[in-house]
Structure formats: structure tokens, C-alpha cells
């Protein structure tokens, strides 16, 4: 395995990654003996009622770490534990948001932490079967997760009587095959059911009608990996970290033009300046930060002047952006924003599932417009087209967030870097250069 790149961030708030770096942390023995692993599961199964577990998660204020940031405890409470028939937990390990590597990081370093979280969640919502939907490209993390599950099964933590508790629990793995849209909950469920991955209309929501029509809880890897910590610290204890409305820590992937790219566990509420300039060492010598994406490519961009925005959801919303997946992409002043936006729109167009008209057509139309602009054939009309495509993708027009994301890229880069767009479209010049996605 590659060297651990990233760190446990700001001590003493390194709640998740505290033991990362311990040799063989990925084995059950070391996880249990050195990292206090599976204490939370034991506590949950034997000392707590399922409703209590959900309440602890609610109290903790944990929000989904996949991108949408929905209050996790509330999401758990949507599953009617007493409804007859099977329920499922599905783990979203599809991690495909550009700039995001935290779930891979967790799975490679401490897969047991994820396993433990899954088991606790399943018990809390009344599910006996969990599925991990892991993206097909994650060969190594998948191998490690398989091993971890095997170890847990051998130790009796997964099976008909986990730890001796009369409540069967099982985890199965399902491999994705290359589609970013599978990160969207209902598209993931379609893929899990063996179909083309196109999102469903909501309502009904997965908590009511999810996998194979059954009530289903979907959570991100990092979200579930945080659950053992919450059980051990108590929800109130967890809520003391971070900000009042957005407690805890989260793993931020910092990449791009920085000296020390890596996955950093950061207390929520620190500034991006701290994360980018201090933790990740800032841009290379002689360059300045020009623009950064605070939460994956789908988060509206922020310019250098907004580096002091804090990493909590409220501050980001006020800055007209979002926390998203925590993938912080930093671009310095040697790169052109228009070219970067073009590359991202190509991504969205390539990954669009094709179900709804605005995303299917709009992303591609934007790509063609960018091509024209970047080939010095643009004009004001093209800027108008980008504007209206961007509007046409957002605010309920699209069936799912993939459409919105493309719109936000156009929207936010236009808002903060209008002059670069006008350079290209109206004056047919580029004063910056680089990006260079393709040969």
C-alpha cells in the first residue's frame, strides 16, 4: 500500500483517523487491541436499544458525508423499524466525485471501522442485510474490505448471532462498473438491482421504498465510519467538536496545486485558508491560489478572496457554495478557469445518465459551447447560452443533482471569473493558459 498521505489533521480532534498509521490497523486483531475497535458494536448490541442508538446519532448532529449533508440521525429515523418484512442498509462506496478520496483512504486504512459502523446502523434501523456498493475501480479497497468482512465473520461478529446477540447480520459486497451517477442514491439502487443506473423520481424515498421495494437506509462510507466514534463518545460528546450546527470533524481531501496533497481530518469550522495553506502547504513556489472547489467539483467555486470562509455547512451556504464531499480542489494562477470549467462539463456530460432532458442535452450543449469559445469562435451569444443552460439545469429542472452540478460549475465560475470568460468569448484571447487535460 502506498505511503499514508494526509494526516490525522488537528490533534486532539482527530476522532476518525487517530490510529491511522498503526501497522496492520486493517486487521481485526490490531483494530481491536490497539484502536479500541468493536467496543461500540458491543455497546450498541447489548447496552442500548435500537431507538437509543438512533437518538445518539441524532444528538451528535452528524450530517451525511457523501455530499448532500442531510442529518444522519434523522435519516435513520425515517426507517420504520417495526414495519413487517426485510429492510436493508446500503453503503454508498461509489466515491466518484472529482477531488474526493476520503472513502478510499478510510477503506484502505481501517476497513473494520466501516464494518463496525455498518453493523451498528443495521441493528439500529432493523435491517439484517447490508450491501456495500463499491465502485469498480477500487480494487485494493475492495480486497481489504473483503478481508475485513471475512475476519469479522470468522470472529463471529457477522453472522446469525453476532457477538452472541440473537439478531442476524450480514454484509455483502456489490461491485460497480464505472458510472459516477451511481453515487446518487436511487441510481445506486437501480444499479444494485442489476439495471441501468438511472435515478428514480422521489417521492417515494428509499426509506420507504428502496432496494427491491423495501425500506432502505443509504449512507456514505465516512458517515458510517463515524458511527462507532459517536457511540463511544456519546452523541453529546461528539457534538462538542466542530460548530454548533455542523458538529464533528470531517475528512477533507486536498488536491491540485498544493505542496502537500492528502486526506486531512479537520475539525469542522476551521477556515479553508488553514486547510489549504497550512495543512496542505499552499501552492507551489511563485504561485498563488486562484480558485478552489470546497467540496468536490460539484460545489460552486470560491475565489482566493474567500479563503477565510469556514468549512461548516452554514458558512458555505452563505458563501453560495456547499460542503459536498469534502473534496477540496485548489487551482493556482497558472491555469485558466474557463478551461477548467470546460473539463468539468465534459465530465458531467460523459457521466450523465440520459434520463432527463435538461442534463442529457444541457451538459453536452454546454460542452459544445465551451469548445466554440475555447477555439476562439465564441461571442456574446455563447455566453448567453452558457447562462441559460446553467439556469436550465438547476432549481428543480433536472431529475437529480448531477444536472444541478453542471449548472453550478458554469454559474459559479461565471460569477467569480467573468473577465476570463469575456477574454475568451469576446476578445478571443486567453491570458492564463495551461490546465491541459488531454494530450
Amino acid at each position: 500500500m502506498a505511503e499514508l498521505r494526509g494526516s490525522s489533521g488537528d490533534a486532539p480532534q482527530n476522532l476518525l483517523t487517530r490510529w491511522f498509521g498503526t501497522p496492520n490497523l486493517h486487521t481485526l486483531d490490531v483494530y481491536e487491541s490497539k484502536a479500541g475497535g468493536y467496543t461500540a458494536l458491543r455497546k450498541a448490541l447489548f447496552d442500548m436499544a435500537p431507538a437509543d442508538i438512533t437518538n445518539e446519532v441524532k444528538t451528535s448532529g452528524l450530517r451525511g458525508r457523501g455530499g448532500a449533508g442531510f442529518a444522519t440521525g434523522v435519516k435513520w429515523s425515517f426507517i420504520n423499524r417495526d414495519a413487517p418484512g426485510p429492510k436493508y442498509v446500503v453503503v454508498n462506496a461509489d466515491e466518484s466525485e472529482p477531488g474526493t478520496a476520503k472513502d478510499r483512504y478510510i477503506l484502505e486504512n481501517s476497513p473494520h471501522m466501516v464494518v463496525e459502523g455498518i453493523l451498528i446502523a443495521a441493528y439500529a434501523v432493523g435491517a439484517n442485510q447490508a450491501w456495500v456498493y463499491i465502485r469498480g475501480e477500487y480494487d485494493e479497497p475492495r480486497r481489504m474490505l473483503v478481508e475485513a468482512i471475512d475476519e469479522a465473520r470468522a470472529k463471529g461478529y457477522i453472522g446469525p448471532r453476532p457477538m452472541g446477540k440473537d439478531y442476524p447480520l450480514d454484509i455483502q459486497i456489490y461491485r460497480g462498473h464505472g458510472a459516477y451517477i451511481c453515487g446518487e442514491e436511487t441510481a445506486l439502487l437501480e444499479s444494485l438491482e442489476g439495471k441501468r443506473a438511472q435515478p428514480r423520481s422521489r417521492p417515494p424515498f428509499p426509506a420507504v421504498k428502496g432496494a427491491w421495494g423495501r425500506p432502505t437506509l443509504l449512507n456514505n462510507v465516512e458517515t458510517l465510519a463515524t458511527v462507532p466514534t459517536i457511540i463511544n463518545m456519546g452523541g453529546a460528546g461528539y457534538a462538542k467538536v466542530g460548530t454548533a450546527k455542523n458538529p464533528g470533524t470531517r475528512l477533507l481531501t486536498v488536491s491540485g496545486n498544493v505542496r502537500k496533497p492528502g486526506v486531512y481530518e479537520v475539525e469542522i469550522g476551521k477556515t479553508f485558508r488553514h486547510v489549504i495553506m497550512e495543512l496542505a502547504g499552499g501552492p507551489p513556489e511563485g504561485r498563488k491560489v486562484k480558485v478552489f472547489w470546497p467540496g468536490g467539483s460539484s460545489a460552486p467555486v470560491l475565489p482566493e478572496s474567500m479563503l477565510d470562509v469556514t468549512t461548516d455547512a452554514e458558512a458555505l451556504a452563505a458563501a453560495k457554495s456547499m460542503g459536498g464531499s469534502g473534496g477540496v480542489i485548489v487551482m493556482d494562477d497558472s491555469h485558466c478557469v474557463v478551461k477548467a470549467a470546460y473539463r468539468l462539463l465534459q465530465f458531467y456530460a460523459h457521466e450523465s445518465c440520459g434520463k432527463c432532458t435538461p442534463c442529457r442535452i444541457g451538459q453536452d450543449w454546454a460542452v459544445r459551447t465551451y469548445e466554440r469559445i475555447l477555439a476562439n469562435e465564441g461571442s456574446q451569444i455563447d455566453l448567453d447560452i452558457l447562462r441559460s443552460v446553467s439556469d436550465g439545469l438547476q432549481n428543480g429542472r433536472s431529475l437529480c443533482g448531477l444536472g444541478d452540478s453542471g449548472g453550478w460549475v458554469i454559474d459559479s465560475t461565471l460569477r467569480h471569473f467573468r473577465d476570463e470568460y469575456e477574454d475568451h468569448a469576446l476578445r478571443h484571447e486567453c491570458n492564463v493558459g495551461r490546465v491541459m487535460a488531454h494530450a
Partner: protein
Amino acid sequence: MPDVNLTIDGHKLSVPAGTLVVEAAKTIGIEIPVFCYHHKLDTVGACRMCLVEMTPGPPRPQTACTTPATEGMVVKTLSAMAVQARADILEFELANHPLDCPVCDKGGECPLQDFTFRHGYPTSRIDGPRLHFKKPIPLSDNIALDRERCVLCYRCTRYYDEVAWEQELTTDERGVQSFITSQFGQPLQSIFSGNIIDLCPVGALTSRVWRFESRPWDMTHTATICSRCSVGCSVTQWQRRGQLVRVTSHENDDIDEGWICDRGRFDYTDVNDPKRYRTPMVDGVKATWADAILTMAAGIRGKGAKLGISLPQDITNEEAFLFRKLLDGPLKGARVKMHGRTALPAPTGDGLRIKEIDDARVIVVVASDIENDVPIVDLRVKKAVGKRGAKLIVVHPDGVDLDRHPGTVHIRNTAGAAAAEVRKLASHELLANPGGPVAILFGDGRGTEDAADLAAACTELAAKVGGKVMPLYRATNERGALAAGVAGWDKLDGVEALFSWGPPPAAGVPSTVRFMAAWDHLPREGHDRAVVLPAATFAERQGSYTNLEGTVQFLRPPIALRPPLKEGWEVLTELANALGLALDYPGIFPIQRELAEQPPSPEPEPAPVLVGPAHP
């Protein structure tokens, strides 16, 4: 369910709870444009065309096709938010759409055209290359696909999956590169494929049989009844300059729910065949009606059992009624053979109606591959099982299409043992507590079963489990012919005179025939030495059929019968007179009135016990 009150564009209205907003708007004449939504398919909210402003709700447009009306809802389709959303979506739909209107068959009846006029931007900003596909692609002999025109509403693939239970039509690739295709480019096989033409809201799926034939405004049309099988679906037949140019569906929720099979849809070009007879012929020479009828009468008079009469599967009730008179009178003793009928006996008692299949909790299908025998009934069964949770039991020696549903219980009987299996079903677990009505559909196994015994067994089972039976007749008007007592079985070997009403016997003209007379529209073998009367086809004739459930439905021909062609009932009346039976009917209505006033036949046609190779 109680009604809910809501307001749409300032109009107050009341609709049953659960009605979708898009349907609620229709009730007061407000059009919310849609592409992917279809009232017979599950809603998906994919195309985003129906975005409107709704309160209560988020400050964003929402899809009217996925939202049920609720009490106190306020819907605005004309607010800036809604109008802009619609226009933008249309602009997107047109971004790759080719400028094909002048050569596209959909023009004139195209929702994309109509919506763009009514809701879209007046000018286009698309300047530059559009997405291109090779086109047109023949999906089958009858259907062409144009991928550039396709707006990917997925109605066609969803229909195939939900209604027809097949996936030979699929979507390939992803995003803007997606396209519709038949599996591995092979021709579509399903008998239900043609409905995708009616479903497609643009000119992507078109009929190859009707390609470049006409514009919609150049045709007139009527809603009439299909003549191809016993289900009696409503169809729309379109004519132009005296030709039947196309057939499309017509929604009759009691029978077909707007679907027709490919036989009804594509099998009509014989009506326009230039080789059609236009005047009577005697021995290959044109003759007058008077001469032809006299010659015919002379040839078939007084022959008794040496006369064979072949009747078509689509003989009308009125023609059958007149044949009964002939067979009771001057043609007494003649042998009669009807095309395409089953071995099933005449119905007894109150049978199952097609629409009652919807409410059945358990459906039993015996001795029939209904996909091929009675296709649209097959779709109705699939709907009851797939969408309404009915359980399904199939009794048949071979696999059938209904096996695709994982819950189907399939009992494979040995040929001939169907009745025995049906008797055992009384103790089947699914029928112990059906929880509602039971529907029992039975065929004749194409001649491999003892039809009378099977009918009895099914009737007994129905009585035991609280159900009704539907004998699956196959000939278009088998039931009407049975009621008139003319659904004949007789073998025609050894007859000296043959009178063919419609096409000649399927087994061929017997070699002993010395005199042949026919009422037919196309030349056949042997006609050059026969008396031939030019027939009116199904698109020109008046009359009625009785479908397999017993509903009498009247034909409304789209094409006016051109003299010297005559109506069938008129010819039979003249023939009767020439044979010495005085009949005088000034029109078809008196015949129908007389038919209606008749008491039902006292002795149902005795059913032959038939076990052996299938009857043609």
C-alpha cells in the same frame, strides 16, 4: 376515495384523491405538455416537460405527472417560472432534433411541433453540428427508427418492459450518446411491437408500411373494429382516395385499452391491391351481377350434402344470419366449414368479460398460448399480474410468454390431459383463498384437447372457487357464427359444388368440385373457372362482430363502397331470391333489428370431440 379541491390557473376544481395534476388539468381543458408521461404507463418524471409551479412545495418547479393532487393545492401553469421552464426544456429537446419536418411522417400530428408552437421560444439559437446517427434503422419489416429525432422519453422501452413483458427493445450507452435499439440490431419479434409507433411522441418510430404515404390532414378516419381475431379491438382506420392507408389504435378501455397487435396494425394492404376484383366474373369473363347471381344459384341449387360452403373467420353477424336462412331453406343439407375456429363449444351462461380480468385475484390460463391466440387479452392478463398483483396459473404443455413473471405457476400437462389438471386445481393452494374473483381462460390446445370436457371442467372449477370462464375463441366472429349456428366443422371432401364466402378452404379446393362460386376480393387458384363475386373488404363492409366475451360491436368502414361492389348482406339477399327464398331487406338495419329480436338458438351447436392434429 373522497375528492380533493384544488386550483389550477385560478380555476377551482374537484378531482378524486390521487389524480395526477397533469390529468386534473386535462379535465378542465388545460394542457400541460408531456413527453414521457402516458396514462397507460408508470410515471417516471423523466422528460421534465410538465414542470409547473405548485404550492405547497419548494420554490422550484415540479413535475405535474408525478405529483398527485392534494386538498388546497394551487397550481400555476402560466407563471413566469412555469412558462420559462417549459420553453427551456423545449429548447433542449430541439437542440439535437434534426430539421426533418418536411420529410417526417409525424408532421401534422406531432406533439413536439404542437408544443413548440404553443409553448416554445419562437427562434432558435442552435448553431453548429447536432448529434448524428445513421438513419433510418429498420427495427423490423414494419417499423423504422430514426435516432436523431428521438427525444428519449423512453415510452417505447417502458411499454415493452411494463406492458408486453419483453426487453428486445433497449437503450444503449449513456447520457447524450444514448440511443434506442433492438437487441443486437436484430429485427423485433414481438407481436406487440407496433404500439410503439402510436406511443412515440415524435417521428422517431414510424410505420414502414405507411411510410411517405400521406399527411394526416389528407386522410379521413373512423373508429371501427379490427377483423383479425376474436378479441375485437377498437382500431382507427384511415383512408385516402379510397385506399386504406393505415391502421392505428383506438382506445377502448373495456377491451384493448388502446393497444393493438401487429396483425391488426400492419396486415391491411390487401385492401388496396390493384388486382382486386371490381366486377363479377364468370369463368374468367366479366359479367353482370344479374348473370353472375343466376349462374351461381343454378350451380348450387338442390345439391344437399354435395354442396360445400366455406365461411371466413370474419363473417359478420348479419351475413351469418342470412346464411342460417339459406341453410334452413334452399341450401338445406349443405356442409359448412368455418375458417380458423377452435374446437370450443358455444358459451353457456354468463362469461367473463375482458375488463373483469383487471379485478381478478387469480387468473388461470389453460390450453392456450394467449400471446399468439388472443394477443390483447394476453396484455390484459399481464397488466393484472404485473401491476395489480394478481396470481397466475398456466396449464400448458410448453413454455409460454407468461412464464416470464417469476410468480407464475406453470403446470405442464401432457397433451390431452388439460381437463384432468383443471379438475385438480380445485385444491390448489392459490385457489384455496383467492381473496377475490377468479378468471379462467381456456383454449382448445389447438386441437390437442377434448374441448367439451375442458369447458365442463373449467365451468365446474369456476363454480367452486368463485370465478368466471372465458372460452378463448380464435376466429374473429366465432361466437357470432356459433350463435347463428353456422360455425361449421364439416369436412368438405367429396363435394361437387363449392361456395366460398371469402377465401377458399384452408385445406384446398377438393378435387371432386365441379362447380365453384366465390365471394372474394383477390384472385385465387381456380377462380378462372368459377363464378366470382367481387367482395367488399373489412374496410368497406357494414356489419357487426361478436367478440369472444360476447360483446357485439359494429364496424364503421372508413371507405365508401364503390359501385359496382355490393355489400355482403345485399348479395346474400339477391342470391336467396334467386334460389327461391323471398327476402327483402332495404338496408342493413332491418336485418340487425330482426337479429336482435330473435330468441337465442335453442340448441347450441354440438361440439365435436376432437383430439388430434390441430384444425387449420
